[in-house]
């Protein structure tokens, strides 16, 4: 493809394994070696068009970095998504025993309260450019809601495939937008295979299958925002939750792109991955020094959004962690809940289980000295706690009930005061 004909920054799709290149099309695996395809850009084209000044003059959304996203024209879906707060978390830093903590709060990402709105915006914008009119995904939570909502806003039809026994709240979270929600019965591997076959048979934009190379690029905006919000600085240490491992690899790519384009200086950023003990194939590979990921047949964790037994980008996440001198941890469900509570109690941010895992991982890394106590750390919080209320149910005491008079409250207050003093 010549740059003269191109109207966007994406030059081609390239196999991450054998390097074979393909034109920009809705394809996701290499025909030669089955390796995953990734968008490659023309950085000379981008360098001529991007600058800090140009970015800061644009509206506060993920699209202020549009030259580094694989669309040709104006964004068509999720125009207002992204640009979530980067919170200076002084109280959390004190609790974790580290000099400085920043929380990237995608628990308030517009419109469906998770970072999936970033990837879906890019996927569906690209899908419309390709001429698709139907969006689809297979999900157990955040992705389902995001595809349904963003497709609705774009006037696209949406099919959302879910395991048949998914919690009612999550089903409603997709159905409310008018999406066709289809429950599939049977064991996880069969559900997975069927979804893969549906993606191959129907001419839909299946966001994390045939649109995956474009979809995954949306994750970079989380890191672009962090670097801009840090005052055009790359983080020293960054902790990222890992499900498929894609987010971590894209955070890595985003930092390298900003450095390459001279938008930030290389800070030697170290990447750390957070997983759950009941499904930690990437963390296991990092800790044991393995190249190959050992799939987890039956994930068992309350962090459902991290429960990907055979992570598609696991190998690349391991490589990025090793390259940067980082590490990975797989934390227990108890640590996840404790992490959720700690973030809520210190910073007023209620995250879902994946975020609890990120906080718990940071805690372990700081306690073990892998992250030095005088360091500055960014934690990526990718989803909202209201979506996983069941995780904390039973871990908090029921509120006391009193008679409707002041005397009753006085008595209760004295009890609470005494209890606090004792604690």
């Amino acid at each position, binding site marked *: 493809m010549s740059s003269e004909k191109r109207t966007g920054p994406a030059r081609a799709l390239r196999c991450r*394994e054998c390097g074979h290149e393909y034109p920009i099309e809705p394809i*996701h*695996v290499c025909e*030669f*070696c*089955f*390796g995953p395809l990734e968008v490659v850009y023309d950085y000379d084209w981008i360098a001529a068009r991007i600058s800090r000044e140009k970015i800061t003059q644009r509206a506060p959304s993920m699209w202020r970095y549009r030259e580094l996203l694989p669309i040709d024209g104006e964004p068509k879906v999720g125009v207002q998504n992204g640009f979530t707060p980067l919170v200076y978390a002084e109280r959390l830093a004190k609790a974790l025993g580290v000099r400085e903590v920043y929380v990237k709060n995608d628990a308030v990402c517009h419109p469906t309260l998770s970072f*999936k709105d970033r990837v879906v915006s890019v996927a569906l914008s690209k899908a419309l450019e390709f001429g698709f009119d139907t969006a689809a*995904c*297979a*999900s*157990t*939570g*955040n*992705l389902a809601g995001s595809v349904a909502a963003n497709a609705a806003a774009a006037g696209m039809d949406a099919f959302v*495939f879910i*395991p048949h026994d998914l919690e009612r709240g999550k089903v409603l979270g997709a159905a409310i937008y008018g999406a066709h929600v289809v429950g599939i019965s049977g064991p*996880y*591997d069969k*559900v*997975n*295979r069927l*979804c*893969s*076959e549906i*993606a191959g048979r129907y001419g839909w934009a*299946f966001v*994390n*299958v045939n649109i*995956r190379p474009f979809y995954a690029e949306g994750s970079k905006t989380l890191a672009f925002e962090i670097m801009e919000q840090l005052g055009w600085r790359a983080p020293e240490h960054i902790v990222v939750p890992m*499900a*498929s491992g894609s987010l971590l690899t894209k955070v890595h790519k985003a930092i390298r792109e900003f450095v390459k384009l001279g938008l930030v200086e290389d800070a030697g950023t170290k990447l750390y991955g957070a997983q759950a003990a009941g499904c930690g194939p990437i963390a296991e590979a990092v800790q044991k020094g393995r*190249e*190959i990921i*050992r*799939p987890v*047949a039956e994930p068992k964790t309350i962090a*459902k*959004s*991290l*429960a*990907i*037994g*055979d*992570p*598609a980008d696991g190998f690349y996440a391991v490589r990025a962690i090793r390259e940067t001198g980082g590490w990975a941890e797989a934390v227990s469900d108890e640590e996840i809940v404790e992490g959720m509570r700690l973030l809520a109690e210190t910073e007023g941010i209620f995250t879902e289980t*994946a975020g609890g895992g990120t906080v718990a991982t940071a805690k372990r890394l700081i306690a073990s000295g892998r992250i030095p106590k005088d360091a500055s750390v960014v934690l990526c919080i990718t989803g909202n706690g209201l979506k996983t209320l069941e995780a904390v149910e039973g871990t908090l005491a029921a509120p006391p009930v009193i008679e409707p008079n002041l005397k009753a409250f006085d008595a209760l207050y004295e009890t609470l005061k005494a209890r606090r003093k004792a604690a």
Partner: protein
Amino acid sequence: MKLRAWLTFGPEHVQKPMIWKLIKTFDALVVNIRTAEIKEDKALVALELEADEDTLEKAIAWLQDQGVHVEPIEQSVIAG
């Protein structure tokens, strides 16, 4: 019908001729190895399997019965 899949073999299978056994068990199955990585305790093979739907289902069930992990090339497409 064609299926493209990743096969993961554990330490108990690494030194055994599993793909030969698969081919011997299913005459109608066409198998095409596209890439493979074999370590001491684990092997990962990208395999293209072609047959009628019934044979394909039986072949996959056979592999799984032997303890081989079979995953579509996309790996886990069900996201959180």
